[in-house]
């Protein structure tokens, strides 16, 4: 388990001095030319950078999530999910903040070809209500919180 960022009790007050600066430097535009299908556990550090948090997850701990922290409030900015066995990437997700100029449903729909006419709703009844929009090839997904139309994230779903 690699934890570059010292994940102690609380992020903002407890660990501010230990956090990687990398997360703060991340920009969505940096990933325009990334071919996510070519990213794996071996080359991700060179192509993306060292994550703040690396942790085994999944039912059998058979996946590894890399979390790059950034933005205000400090939280996940970019997350990568890998298959622990073969090292292939399964998902890459960019998390927006309310001040991000590009966090606009129509702008992102045009840029990534998300079909705004056919949202998928939350798979379960509980929790915050969200809409999920995909592109024609289903390789990308945009998550929008219904209550305030906040674009929460866009994901590259490589494992689908």
């Amino acid at each position, binding site marked *: 388990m690699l934890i570059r960022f010292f994940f102690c009790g609380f992020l903002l007050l407890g660990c501010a001095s230990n956090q990687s600066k990398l997360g703060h430097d991340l920009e969505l535009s940096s990933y325009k030319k990334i071919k996510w299908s070519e990213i794996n556990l071996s080359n991700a550090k060179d192509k993306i950078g060292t994550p703040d*948090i690396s942790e085994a997850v999944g039912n059998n701990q058979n996946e590894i999530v890399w979390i790059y922290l950034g933005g205000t409030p400090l939280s*996940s900015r970019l997350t990568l*999910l890998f298959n622990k066995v073969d090292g292939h990437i399964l998902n890459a997700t960019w998390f927006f903040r309310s001040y991000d100029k590009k966090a606009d449903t129509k702008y992102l729909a045009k840029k990534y070809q998300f079909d705004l006419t056919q949202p998928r709703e939350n798979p379960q009844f*509980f929790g915050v209500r969200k809409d999920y929009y995909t592109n024609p090839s289903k390789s990308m997904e945009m*998550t929008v919180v219904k209550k305030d139309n906040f674009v929460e994230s866009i994901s590259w779903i490589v494992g689908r």
Partner: protein
Amino acid sequence: MILIKTKKEKGADLSAFFVSTFHLTLKDHPNPGTSADGIIVLYDEAFTQKYNLARILGHELAHQKYLDLSSEDRMSYQSTTNWLPFKTDTGTEKYYSRTDGFVADDGRESPEEDFANNVEFYLFERGRLKRLTPHADRWIAEHYGKDFKIKGKK
């Protein structure tokens, strides 16, 4: 069992009104109550001496309060209490979270359950919240103000 529909009128989003009452005891259900967006269900067990009904209702209304938070406030809470989102290969949302500082064990399930527990303890057992999760205590105090308390509670 009592089914409650929560009101969402401006300035009154923690009040509620009863829409139907019927008896149902779920003996295998561990919780005296449950909720989803707009609905609270109180099982018969909630009305036994084993439980504090006001506290159960406070907890379930806190779930509604969490769902009513703006995305910005919800993110602020999650950041303050160390809930870091990521997504699975199917796009399902998961969280990487702190490993300690929970007032109740089921708070480890999700930021929403953690929030409901913390608001419940803020209102009914604040000393424990201050001791175990001081950042959550401060966040609730800053967001809801000094008047956020159970009226009549000594």
